[in-house]
């Protein structure tokens, strides 16, 4: 006979009673973990609404579960009368001037209850006492009187503050009613104006940039010519130069010194122009004049450099790129 058939009663007995044992153990563990066997003390509170509240919502004090909601009903004043049970271990935490704060989690929609202990830990409240809620005027008075300190998590605190601010701003008797919309309207106007100004500023900067580039190019050419001239004067070969200043100390050297000084000054002028260019849009006109002066100076220096008595006269002027400041007009010419 097979083992299973010989010992059917034993196998079935073990199979069945092991399952019953597991079931009983589960009940015991649930009862212990949910403190079902402990003595509990009843208290009650009132909330303005039952949003997120359930009969098993836990009451926490400094992160510890000290009790939970037993039941709640809507009373004649349209407020939520809530029965709360407190576990035996935390019975003496329920002291006078304590309060309960109900805050809702915006993600899960569930409410959490936090117990805020009163200042005097000796005045233990009797069973069945009323514990005010922070969501009601009684609790707010305790908070304002400094008898309890409200501590919530960061998100809840921010949301509570925002909620309170919005409530205050929207109250009928509030003089600042509608101020949020006014602020938003003004902000929109300011933003629009700023946008327009930014457009104008952008156009000005484009123009200024173009003029600066042109001026810098002219300056560069001028300095280049001055450099050539200085080199020429350092080794004069012209007839007039040899005639009037054979040693080079009467005319050419002072002229050379003057031109070096001029070069230095032009360098300073370049820096100055860069600085001015970054400072104010009004100098665009000055820069255009400066550009013309530099053009003249360049011509003069080149004239001196190429003087028939000294060199070969004034050369043909080469058109400068962007000197007219209207590149687009040139581009569209046939």
């Amino acid at each position, binding site marked *: 006979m097979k083992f299973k058939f010989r010992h059917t009663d034993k196998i079935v007995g073990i*199979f069945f009673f092991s399952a019953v044992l597991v079931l009983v153990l589960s009940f015991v563990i*649930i009862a212990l973990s949910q403190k079902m066997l402990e003595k509990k003390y009843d208290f009650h509170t009132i909330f303005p609404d039952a949003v997120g509240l359930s009969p098993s919502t836990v009451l926490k004090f400094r992160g510890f579960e000290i009790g939970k909601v037993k039941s709640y009903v809507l009373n004649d004043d349209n407020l939520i009368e809530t029965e709360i049970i407190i576990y035996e271990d935390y019975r003496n935490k329920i002291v006078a001037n304590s309060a309960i704060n109900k805050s809702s989690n915006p993600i899960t929609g569930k409410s959490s209850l936090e117990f805020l202990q009163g200042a005097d830990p000796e005045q233990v409240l009797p069973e069945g006492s009323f514990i005010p809620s922070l969501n009601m005027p009684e609790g707010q008075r305790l908070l304002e009187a400094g008898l309890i300190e409200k501590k919530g998590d960061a998100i809840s605190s921010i949301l509570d503050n925002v909620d309170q601010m919005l409530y205050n701003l929207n109250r009928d008797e509030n003089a600042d009613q509608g101020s949020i919309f006014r602020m938003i309207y003004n902000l929109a106007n300011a933003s629009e104006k700023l946008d327009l100004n930014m457009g104008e500023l952008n156009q000005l900067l484009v123009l200024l940039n173009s003029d600066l580039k042109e001026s810098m190019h002219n300056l560069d050419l001028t300095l280049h010519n001055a450099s050539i001239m200085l080199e020429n004067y350092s080794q004069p070969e012209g007839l007039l130069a040899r005639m009037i200043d054979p040693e080079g100390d009467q005319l050419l050297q002072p002229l050379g010194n003057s031109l070096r000084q001029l070069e230095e000054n032009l360098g300073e002028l370049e820096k100055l122009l860069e600085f001015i260019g970054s400072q104010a849009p009004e100098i665009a006109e000055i820069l255009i004049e400066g550009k013309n002066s530099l053009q003249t100076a360049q011509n003069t220096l080149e004239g001196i450099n190429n003087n028939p008595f000294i060199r070969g006269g004034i050369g043909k002027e080469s058109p400068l790129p962007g000197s007219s400041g209207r590149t687009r007009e040139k581009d569209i010419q046939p």
Partner: protein
Amino acid sequence: MKVIVDFWKVLKRSTTEIFEFYLFALDTFRRLLTFSRQKQIGFTVLLRQIMFTGYEALPLISFLALSIGGLIIIQGYNILGTFGQGDLIYVILVTVVIRELSSILTALIVIARSGTAISTELGNMVTNNEINLLLSCGISPVSYLVVSRMVGVVVALFTLTIYFNLAAVFGGWLFSALFSPINFRYFFSQLFSQMTMADILIGVLKSILFGIGIALISSYQGLKVNIASTEVPQRTIRAVVLSIVFVVFADIIITALFYLI
């Protein structure tokens, strides 16, 4: 006109069958009350039924529960953990596995293994005139065969449901430890804090109700075989289909009642 006549015949046959099934169930419950007095008749059948339906199905049930528990924990932790709601896995385990899946999956396996076996066995007994033999000896086939089978299936289903929960939760934790280890103590303290006695009792209540339904439907379909052995597979298929329909509807009704109450 013929359609109406056919429809009327089908309706009449179905109504008669429902009424007959009702009387059969009533007779079974009546004889169940006297089962303890005549247990020497059906006790061995009862033990063997529990052995076959319960003990022998344990490996399959454990494997299924282990896989489902492990998958729920792993997938749930990965998905819920990404938005900081990893602790909701315990709520899902309690709601999905303990309250719903344990009883319904166990019932489906029992239908597949034992429901078919009961229907086939009783059908063959009818065709072999064994039922007539029992009657001629003054033994009620309902007392001897049906009541013991019903009690056996109920006890087996109830026991298997508890083992399913155990394997799904404990085995699921073991399985998940391979991929994303969760502290044993933390896991079980969180699980038991989310679980209520009602969650377990609902699972147990469902398993008892499913067991009664499966045993009665399968036995009734088996005993409805008349003469031919070709009727046996037809009745077996009918037993399976009706048992599955019963389990699903009963589950919906119990769950709805739980949320309404």
